[in-house]
């Protein structure tokens, strides 16, 4: 079951690299959240109820419901479901993400450790680097944010990959989530309207000379 979830998680990453519409990105991130929710449930069934509930509620509410809903309402419905400007052709992104997958697999295999499971680690590393890749190649604030959320999902998966200090690390990841929600909801959506379009080319006033 976990394999199925992690593979679907991986496929969402591949899809993210070629997605072209804002709504697709949003849906994919929400889907990732849903998969993380199930993975967390299966993986952490045995920890104490309070912690489990906290983590599950956080994944379900923040990742699957609140963030996608707000992004949908404040960005997509308001400005229309615009196509995201792809700077690098989807074909290249796809190749890169596949390569990332392969490399993260190799890395996790070479660093083989009894404590972590290769499948988790591969998924997590692939998500982190795919997120970084999305941030590097895209030029829109929206896709940057999606890249950040992908990284963060990767971190969450990574914290699940480590069996030992589960409650503390996962709680920290939860904290990270809450912070990032603050980041997105607080600043981004309310304030960046000052810039007429959400293109990073507009964020170029700060420079030397």
């Amino acid at each position, binding site marked *: 079951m976990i394999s199925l979830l992690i593979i679907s998680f991986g496929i969402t990453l591949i899809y993210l690299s070629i997605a072209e519409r804002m709504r697709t990105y949003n849906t994919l991130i929400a889907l990732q959240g849903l998969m993380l929710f199930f993975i967390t449930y299966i993986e952490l069934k045995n920890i104490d109820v309070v912690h489990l509930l906290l983590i599950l509620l956080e994944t379900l509410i923040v990742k699957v419901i609140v963030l996608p809903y707000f992004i949908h309402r404040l960005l997509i419905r308001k400005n229309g479901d615009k196509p995201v400007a792809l700077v690098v052709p989807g074909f290249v992104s796809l190749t890169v993400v596949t390569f990332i997958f392969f490399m993260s697999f190799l*890395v996790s295999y*070479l*660093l083989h*450790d009894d*404590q*972590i499971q290769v499948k988790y680690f591969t998924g997590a590393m692939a998500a*982190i680097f795919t997120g*970084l890749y999305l*941030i590097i190649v895209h030029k829109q*604030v929206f896709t*940057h*944010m999606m890249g*950040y959320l992908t*990284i*963060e999902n990767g*971190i969450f998966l*990574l*914290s699940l*990959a*480590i069996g*030992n*200090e589960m409650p*503390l*690390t996962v709680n*920290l*990841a939860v*904290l*990270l989530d809450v*912070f*990032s929600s*603050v*980041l997105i909801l607080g*600043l*981004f959506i309310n*304030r*960046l309207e*000052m*810039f007429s379009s959400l293109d990073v080319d507009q*964020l170029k*006033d*700060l420079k*030397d*000379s």
Partner: protein
Amino acid sequence: MVTTYFIAAGIAILIILTFQRPLVSHGMVMVFIGFLAAMSINEAQSFENPDGYFFKADALGVIFLFVTLIISFFAAIHYIIYAQKRSQAPSVIAIHNASFVVFVTAISGTFLSTHIGMLWAFLEASTLSGAALIYHDRDKLSLEATWKYLFVSSIGVTLGFAGIMFLSIAAHNTPNYISELVSVAPEMNIGWIKTSFIFVLTGFSVKMGIVPLFTIDIDAKDSSPSPIGAMFSGPLMSMGFIAIYRFYQIYAHTSILAWMNSVLLITGVLSLFLAAVFILKTNNFKRILAYSSMEHAGLILIAFSTGVNGYLVAILHLTLHAFAKAGLFFQIGQVHRTYQSKIEEECGNYFKVSPVGSIALLAGLLAIVAMPPSGLFMTEFLLFKSLMISGEWWIVFVVMFLLCFFVYAIVRKFFTLIFINNPNAKVIEHVSPLESLPPLILVSIVLVFGVMSPDFLIRMITDAIQVLPK
């Protein structure tokens, strides 16, 4: 005591946000700084004794607590003037002061944390409060800087978190307390901790202002009020250094010590090189100071990478640089008020406008370009000495060559500001000479240090670096 301090900070924030009156909020910041002072003194006395579950003051923690205390005290004073002169709205002042308290609390908490997770939480808190501080002016530029800072910094801190995860993989079932991690360090898997160190260095470079994530740090120092620029250049940089240092301290007991040193060396030289390239291009005084901070951060890493000879030099350099740079930032804030500009083309003849301010600037320049009697001269001298001892001759030449660029850029641009008569420069406000007192005090600490260095400080640092392997 730390707990009391956090509670005091919380209460201060509550009062500031509830009343939203400038007088109350400035008063509360001062009270909070009083608590910080009390806590610092208390920690200095109960040195090396655990304080609560997560905190303990080691020598480095105490030194940087005092650095933070002094700089944040002056920053608070400068902010009072800043807010008054610009007749800021009370809500803006309240939000700034509340974030300032969170910011200082986060920084001082980092110095004292003995738990890696706690350390990380403070770094994250400093990101959020730092973003609020940068957004003070609420215009397009500061919004841009805030967004970039928040975004890149969050990514940095997230990567740092990944580094912590790798550490806990390597440490098996050990709780993430630094002392316990140090004791299990020799058994750690080399691959994991190398990955961990790379992630941590990349992630926390955002706080220290070094390669690779340095750009937003420069933007932040540029577009925030100058007292905040001082906070970013001094305490925040120390915080980033301490965050990296804690991991270094753990991994130093493994076989990757030499590898880590070369990583630090490469990072340092790269930072120095990039800062040299950018500092020549810019004509914005605050950005010049920001790039100069990056230069010094690079020097600190280089010093640190030379091993046992360099640890003392690095920490001393960090301490002194914090004072000198904070003083310069305060003074540049006054220049900014005088001309309503921080661009080279729109300022000039500052010596005529404000002789005292110019002396503060010149003294600051002397300190920052490491001319004798600046304390930074001493540390840079020792840096070169330790580089030579470890036989890294080519690094010595590269660093010396790059330093020439900094001296040239800083001196030329600041001399234009101070001595050259510029017809475009319009003096809009005359700043009272009294305001140059804090910069003068801060800079003279650095200058005096070059002449007679206090033994207790050296001894403290020497004690602190005993934990690192010879």
